[in-house]
């Protein structure tokens, strides 16, 4: 590795740092709550509170409103932050914060270390549009059953819950197997769950259709080496402008890999 390439992996490292920080937060907070009764920071990514600043995951909040058919003002206020984040920056929760993303990223690095291959094969066995139907199906099922299902089956939420269960009660919930399944799917095909099945990702994607932060290509600098396509965790092709679509989650992997610096974040 030359110093140039090290400098160029800026977003990759910064992102891993963000993911690790977010993961450490949900790892440490239950222990702080249990042993020190420090309840200033609380919860995980279903609902997080820092003092009196509350965040609620938009999909969980919407499910709660839809199924209970009541509106609770603090819930709406809690959803405001994540919704604004998604409106301005797109699906950045998925790529920069989500604990599943962190675990997948670690797995990726491990696989790269073992196989000694720079890129994993980009298999896209399913149509990309499936993710919208995952959201739709999830909402319909929720409304039919009359109970929100993503709230107790969401993989990022389950990571938080399992950590809490382990810290507070020294046990694990059975449904944590879903996290293992999602990671196994990731082993089989890169980010299979995030790409095609995550309803929360779909919702954030929809919110971020008109986002301000997009990755744009300078066609003069692009040499069409298609490295960016190989690097994209979602199997998008930044060279054809797919990074401006709702599917892109602004992780910056393509910017890091681009040798001619044709790709940049644009506000």
């Amino acid at each position, binding site marked *: 590795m030359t110093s140039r390439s090290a400098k160029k992996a800026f977003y990759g490292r910064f992102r891993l740092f963000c993911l690790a920080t977010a993961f450490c937060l949900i790892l440490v*907070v*239950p222990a702080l*709550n*249990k042993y020190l*009764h420090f*309840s200033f920071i*609380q*919860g*995980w990514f*279903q*609902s997080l*509170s820092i003092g009196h600043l*509350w965040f*609620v*995951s938009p999909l*969980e*909040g919407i*499910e*709660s409103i839809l*199924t*209970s*058919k*009541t509106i*609770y003002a*603090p*819930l709406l206020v*809690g959803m405001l932050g994540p919704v604004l984040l998604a409106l301005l920056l797109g699906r950045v929760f998925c790529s920069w914060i989500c604990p599943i993303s962190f675990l997948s990223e670690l797995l990726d690095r491990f696989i790269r270390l073992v196989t000694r291959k720079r890129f994993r094969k980009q298999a896209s066995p399913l*149509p990309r*549009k*499936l993710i919208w*139907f995952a959201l*739709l*199906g999830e909402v*319909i*099922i929720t409304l*039919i*059953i*009359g*109970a*929100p*299902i993503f*709230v*107790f*089956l969401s993989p990022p*939420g389950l990571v*938080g*819950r399992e950590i*809490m*269960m382990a810290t*507070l*009660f020294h046990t694990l*919930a*059975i*449904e944590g197997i879903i996290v293992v399944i999602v990671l196994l799917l990731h082993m089989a095909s890169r980010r299979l769950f995030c790409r095609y099945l995550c309803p929360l990702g779909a919702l954030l994607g929809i919110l971020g259709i008109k986002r301000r932060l997009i990755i744009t290509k300078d066609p003069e600098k692009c040499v069409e080496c298609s490295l960016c396509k190989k690097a994209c965790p979602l199997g998008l092709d930044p060279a054809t402008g797919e990074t401006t679509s709702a599917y892109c989650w602004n992780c910056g992997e393509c910017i890091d890999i681009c040798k001619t610096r044709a790709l940049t974040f644009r506000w």
Partner: protein
Amino acid sequence: MLRMKLKKLKPALTSRKDPREENGSTRRDLVKFLVAGAGWAAVACRSHPALSAGTASPVKTNILRPPGAVPEEIFPAKCIRCGRCVEVCPYESIVPTDIRDTIYAGTPLIDVTKIPCYLCMKCVEVCPTGTLSRISQQETRMGLAVIDKHACVTWNQELALCRTCYNVCPFKEKAIKLDQLRPVVIDKFCTGCGLCTHGCPITQKSGKKAINIEPIYSFKPVKW
């Protein structure tokens, strides 16, 4: 002759449909399948007794919701299972359920025979969805303490001087009074915190105590 037939068959066997068309149909089928499956599952769960037992609320005698909880009818709908009430509880009274309680998975419960609620009212402050509404200690109605007069020593025996429930009650002389040295619950003031159940020295064969909390308020119908 046979060879000719095979030749004719070959393109039919090897030809593939347009992949886009294939994808379109599978996707539609998938959505149809999901919707139909969910519909049937919901109908089955509501109608079939064996399955509806699985979707029954985990709330029962001595197993209660935290203070300020909305009725069970909308509790699983409103709660987002963020676990903040579980995390904030300093006594670890609140324990989340798991997937064995089907749609109630991840919802908070208090087993008062293990650890009762000490009414610190921290959980109602942190609930982001209003599932636990912000109420005071006195307004809390997690259930109602009911004395089993066949099991309670002061009621079924002569001259037994147990008054543990009276002593531990946080609303002594209001929620539990002594009537000729026998405890009596006043339903107007009982919060259902379970301190009496936890303190009761009598444990029956069924696991119940001589004073139990019945979650009668959890099964109130919801007014829309």
